[in-house]
């Protein structure tokens, strides 16, 4: 690990919605930033550097760090850096912030992820991220490839659409306990999901994440600064990144090898041998209901092909041995540049014991996962104790 221990000491996020027509981009980001500063009881001058991220083509603006890092965050006359890595933008921001503090370069860093998807469109924006000669003609944003994944996964392991539907039901019911979540559906049933329109076989509408508008801000501090700020931080114990081939479809994607590789390395660092027993909660990046089942396998929560069984046994439910996505996950809230940072922030909230109605009891260790790009995975493990 780095020269310094690093903790999350302040968290802010907007109430995510499908449209935020009352505010422009920097005004929306400011809400999350203000909340994070107030949470850590820090002054703007206390922040050494700002790291901000979104995907340019989603809103049609370039160089947003220039004005959003200054007008929405305390970045004036300070280093402001932009990070954009697709779906993993938020976790890349989180990992980039970690390195900046762990290395001793800065003492306190503000991390911001945001997206305002109704200003443009995620599907259209995603297509522009791919190869113009080979991929743009047929690519249908993220959901088309995720549908291919689901069809392969279904074929190989016999996972049923009802099992996938139960993921949406679990996550959107969890979202009802999260005041920041976008889609809160406390009464959603498997039948509702099964009856929703098929938008890309086998994906039904309710199998898919929404497009949200929102921002998330997180403040990191080194061990010395953390002592002065809070007696209830979330310590970062492991960060891991694994990237993949050039084209999104170079490999069959449902078993997400990057998640297996990144999580194994992270578990080793923290001394985790059985993630279901050793972790207390996981916030994972599930763009579709099918992907949560597949990702729980790739992360080693169960054997390959047993994601459906893991869910059916109730292990990933709020009352289970390893609750997955108490916040409602990506199926409930998806402002893309913020989405993976929300996973980290929600994992930190669980470690701090501040989840209120969505709190899992006695969380010592939590996992946050980012997914995106060309099947990339990023992992962060947080803990209550500084020394494990």
């Amino acid at each position, binding site marked *: 690990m780095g020269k310094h221990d690093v903790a999350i000491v302040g968290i802010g996020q907007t109430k995510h919605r499908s449209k935020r027509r009352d505010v422009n981009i920097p005004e929306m980001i400011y809400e999350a930033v203000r909340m994070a500063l107030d949470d850590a009881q820090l002054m703007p001058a206390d922040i050494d550097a700002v790291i901000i991220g979104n995907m340019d083509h989603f809103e049609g603006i370039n160089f947003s760090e220039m004005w959003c890092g*200054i007008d929405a965050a305390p970045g004036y006359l300070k280093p402001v850096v932009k990070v954009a890595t697709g779906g993993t933008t938020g976790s890349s921001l989180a990992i980039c912030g970690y390195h900046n503090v762990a290395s001793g370069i800065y003492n306190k860093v503000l991390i911001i992820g945001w997206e305002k998807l109704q200003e*443009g469109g995620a599907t259209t924006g995603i297509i522009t991220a791919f190869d113009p000669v080979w991929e743009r003609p047929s690519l249908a944003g993220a959901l088309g490839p995720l549908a291919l*994944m689901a069809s392969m996964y279904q074929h190989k392991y016999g996972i049923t659409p009802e099992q996938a539907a139960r993921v949406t039901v679990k996550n959107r019911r969890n979202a009802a306990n999260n005041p920041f979540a976008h889609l809160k559906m406390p009464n959603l049933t498997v039948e509702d999901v099964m009856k929703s329109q098929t938008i890309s076989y086998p994906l039904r509408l309710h199998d898919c994440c929404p497009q949200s508008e929102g921002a998330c801000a997180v403040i990191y501090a080194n061990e010395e600064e953390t002592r002065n700020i809070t007696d209830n931080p979330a310590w970062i114990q492991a960060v891991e990144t694994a990237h993949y081939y050039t084209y999104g479809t170079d490999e069959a994607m449902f078993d997400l090898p990057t998640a297996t590789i990144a999580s194994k390395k992270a578990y080793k660092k923290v001394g985790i041998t059985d993630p279901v027993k050793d972790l207390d909660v996981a916030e994972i990046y599930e763009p579709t209901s099918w992907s949560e089942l597949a990702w729980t396998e790739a992360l080693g929560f169960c054997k390959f092909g047993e994601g459906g069984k893991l869910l059916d046994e109730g292990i990933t439910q709020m009352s289970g041995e390893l609750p997955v996505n108490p916040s409602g996950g990506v199926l409930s809230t998806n402002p893309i540049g913020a989405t993976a940072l929300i996973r980290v922030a929600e994992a930190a909230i669980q470690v701090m014991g501040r989840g209120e109605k969505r709190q899992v009891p006695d969380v010592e260790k939590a996992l946050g996962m980012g997914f995106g790009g060309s099947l990339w995975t990023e992992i962060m493990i947080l803990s209550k104790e500084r020394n494990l």
Partner: protein
Amino acid sequence: MSRGKDKEKVFQIKWKTDLPYRYSMGKLSVQFFKELKENKKLHGSKCPQCGKVYFPPRAVCADCMVEMTRLIELYDTGTLVGFTVVNYPFVDPQTGGLRPFPYGYGLFKLDGVDTYTMHFIDEVDHTKLRVGMRVKAVFKEVREGNLGDIPYYKIIREKPKPKKVEKMVEDIEEKVFRGRIKVPYKHVAGAYVEKFITEIGKNNKIMGVKCPKCGKVYVPPKMICFNCFEKMDEWVEVSNQGSVKGFTVVSHSTPVMPLEPPFAYALITLDGSNTEIVHIIKESDPKKLKPGMRVEAVFKDKPRKRITDIEYFRPI
């Protein structure tokens, strides 16, 4: 959330990006599309170290970090490993319009290839598709040397075939793929910008906001004083007259210019404001402009809720 509430008047700026670009395809792709156009043949690239065959062809084997200079001729048949029918509307950034849907979309392995690839399939009924089905590329009669020459793959009933012989890439000319990115956007301007623009159009008044901490007045207004990081709520009217801080005279013409050159634009500090705005100067000989000169706003007769509702500034 009620739809009616969403439809309440919100000041939005709409525009459509239309960016032409030239993308250098790389020599293996150039050779691929030449063979596709002239001979209706598909090729992949083969790693000289591990022997892995890639489709689409590319210059480097990611596993070995070794350059690939060999193309291998491929069969135009393969096996379906995943499929979907895309049945949702979205803007295709290649055209700026909706991409026609539904369309069949498959992931398959061409025979003898080690990677997967995706493309259109000519079937929109998912119940007629199964993993393991055989597919074959369909070629256009008149080909242009791009991926559109294979409009789709069709389902067939042939068995898989063995690998073909490999061959070296010939020397080829440089070639670019010419494309466009066309995307529509709606940008929510926010309450501060809306009030600013509305006051200009309705009352010919220029409004700023004042920082409660440092007292700085911002024109155009914004929510946060970046110096103090304070939220600003106090509106103040500033003068429609001010001083030129700096200027330039535009003398060359490009399609994105708002006016025919020569014309001048300047950084202007309005009396009562502490910031500068950029705007056009007219009714003046560009040669006579100098820093410090006094100017005043000329308002548009028929405002259109744009910053150009201040049509230009003129010397006084």
